[in-house]
């Protein structure tokens, strides 16, 4: 193992890790917004809105995220959408993650007992009040762990933007594998950083889950 080489290049990997973290945070934020919108659509009173929500989930979960990124980044200019690679990465991955989060959030909401909604309505709360003051506070507690799983997948999925040349961890590893012919060393550097990010996120999710849980 070439320790000397690893010491020489690791600052570049650290810098790339920050890009991966930034990508993950932005993607998670956009994914959560899409997920909340998607889940609202899936649970809407109107069948046309429910259909749109279901179509969103089916299409974005039914095709590879890599292809979705390529359509947005390479195909976008043909329909007047000009994005740089980083923006395309965040938007593409965010919409994709949103489809997965839609199902997670929907699952959390429908797992809340029907009686809760009926009771709140009987007490004179409006539909919106029922949803925001009774159902969501209960669902949110249940959602921390499953959304944490989505977050874990999302962090690993940020590697895909290497294919559209965003200089994050995987792209950096790929570049240095190509120029040094030391795949194991470069994998070790990038892999350890990924595992630190994922481990830290997992601990954060577990902490939040403990904090919001009522026993």
């Amino acid at each position, binding site marked *: 193992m070439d320790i000397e080489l690893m010491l020489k290049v690791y600052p570049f990997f650290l810098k790339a890790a920050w890009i991966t973290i930034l990508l993950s945070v932005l993607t998670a934020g956009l994914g959560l917004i899409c997920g909340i919108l998607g889940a609202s659509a899936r649970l809407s009173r109107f069948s046309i809105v429910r259909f749109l929500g279901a179509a969103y989930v089916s*299409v974005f979960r*039914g*095709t*590879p*995220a*890599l*292809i*979705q990124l*390529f*359509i947005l980044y*390479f*195909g*976008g*200019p*043909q*329909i007047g959408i000009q994005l740089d690679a980083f923006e395309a990465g965040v938007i593409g991955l965010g919409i994709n993650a949103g489809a997965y989060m839609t199902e997670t959030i929907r699952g959390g909401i429908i797992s809340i007992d029907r009686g809760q909604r009926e009771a709140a309505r009987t007490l004179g709360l409006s539909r919106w009040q029922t949803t925001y003051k009774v159902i969501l506070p209960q669902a949110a507690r249940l959602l921390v762990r499953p959304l944490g799983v989505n977050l874990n997948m999302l962090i*690993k*999925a*940020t*590697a*895909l933007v*290497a*294919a559209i040349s965003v200089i994050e*961890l*995987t792209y950096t*590893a*790929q570049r240095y*594998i190509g120029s040094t*012919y*030391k*795949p*194991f060393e470069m*994998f070790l550097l*990038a*892999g350890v950083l*990924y*595992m630190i990010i*994922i*481990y830290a996120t997992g601990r954060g999710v577990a902490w939040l889950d403990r904090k919001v849980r009522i026993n």
Partner: protein
Amino acid sequence: MGLDFSIVPDYLDIILLGVAWTIGITVASALLSFVGGIFFAVIALYSPWIIRQPFRLIEWVFMGTPLLLQLFLIYFGLVQIGIDLPAFVAGIIGLGLHFAVYNSELIQTAILAVDKGQMEAARTLGLSRGEALRKVVVPQAVNAVIPPIGNNMIALLKDSALVSVIGVSELTLSAQRVIGKTYRPFEFYLVAAAFYYVINLCMEWVQRKIERRIAVSR
């Protein structure tokens, strides 16, 4: 530059060849991931501590790093240690091992979920440990494990697009090749997405059929 789908049929043969490769790679990786998954699960559940540890490390690395990075390691790493495999073989090994780790988790959970009393009852009736496992515990675990493994296989289909990055001419790379000639990325990536979507729907259909059959057999 607007959209023009009229040239799509001219290149459909290249795309269809890519579809065939995608299906082939998915099936081969799926088989490897079943066998690997059972192997990893047996080691995790029934082997001595000292053998378990290195496998736990492997699982940990495979679950904690992106598949794309793992594909780079396997493809370029094998070359470095003197094994020059064709890209598609490296792709199948990478996809297969990655999903074997995820399948192993599911198989372990399913085996542990079969009630302990089942094993004890079988042993009381005079079956050996191996027989009890094979004839009593595993058949019950299989029913529980098929639906979630089906989900993994659908994920595998979509992740097979990643092997295009190490140069396997499956559907994604075929679309890229056509785009290199036509400069029509939107149209041909959309066509590729449509084919993935159709294969995906077929897999979901088969999955529902199998799940219904399991529900009946219970």
